[in-house]
């Protein structure tokens, strides 16, 4: 038996097919979800992928957050459904208040596409258990609204509860508070990050690294062993 992992396509989603490919390469079954779906087709987990949903007009993720599919998603995420938000998906999760903080325009104001070094800070979430805490990995980063900010109290909470999942290493590419690249919710089932693990799953394409694959094997193992 394998796990069925949903990938939501919003108008303007870009990395939906790439995310489905990454899920397949990890050995799980990708299930396409549409933003107008009113249920989640009984998937075991959901990925909100990267892109510019609704053109990122108004604010990144602000319009997508009100899509029909988000209603069951928010409800089930609160009940423990594993959800991963990548880039635009992370932005949607913060707009939906499933994760704290928000993303501002990069401090240098440019779109940036680079192979980014990260440190895995929390290897106990649903999506990071195949990493080890402290592991250094390279994952492509590509965005214009990637500066993670939160108020001091939220940052303190995140830090003290070990909910900073990933931190930028060597270069802080966008001015994010505390070099934060990704965070988890309290239960560890909802994780969001700006870099794109689905672009680091094959040696031949992209940066030629496969550092992103453990995201998808982590969740697969968790679901299959559950």
């Amino acid at each position, binding site marked *: 038996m394998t796990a069925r992992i949903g990938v939501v396509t919003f108008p303007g989603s870009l990395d939906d097919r790439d995310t489905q490919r990454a899920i397949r390469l990890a050995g799980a079954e990708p299930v396409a979800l549409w933003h107008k779906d009113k249920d989640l087709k009984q998937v075991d987990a959901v990925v909100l992928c990267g892109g510019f949903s609704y053109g990122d007009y*108004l604010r990144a993720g602000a319009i997508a957050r009100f899509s029909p599919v988000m209603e069951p998603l928010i409800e089930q995420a609160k009940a423990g459904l594993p959800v991963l938000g990548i880039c635009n998906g992370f932005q949607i999760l913060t707009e939906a208040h499933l994760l704290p903080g928000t993303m501002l325009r990069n401090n240098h104001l440019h779109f940036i596409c680079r192979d980014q070094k990260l440190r895995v800070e929390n290897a106990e979430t649903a999506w990071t258990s195949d990493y080890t805490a402290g592991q250094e990995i390279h994952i492509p980063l590509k965005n214009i609204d990637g500066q993670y900010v939160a108020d001091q109290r939220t940052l303190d909470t995140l830090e003290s509860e070990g909910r900073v999942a990933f931190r930028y290493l060597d270069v802080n590419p966008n001015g994010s508070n505390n070099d934060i690249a990704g965070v988890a919710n309290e239960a560890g089932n909802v994780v969001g990050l700006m870099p794109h693990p689905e672009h680091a799953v094959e040696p031949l394409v992209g940066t030629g690294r496969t550092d992103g694959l453990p995201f998808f094997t982590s969740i697969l193992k968790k679901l299959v062993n559950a």
Partner: protein
Amino acid sequence: MARVVVDVMLKPEILDPQGQAVQRALPRLGFDGISDVRQGKRFELEVDGPVDEAALARIHDLAESFLANTVIEDFTVRVEEVAEAVK
């Protein structure tokens, strides 16, 4: 001290994809009866000293050459009364 507000809007004839996306999302959220949305920028300039005609003219120049891209945007300049900050 006085505040000068510069509002920058896309010219009416220029397509505003952002406003359009917001407008289309409104019915879904249950906000009916809004036929058009246009999105712009508001700049608040805190001016040292009196806002006389010369100062306004300077701000007008600044808005024209810098804050607005007059190829696609219009702007307005107005003075806003600010209550003296409580010490």
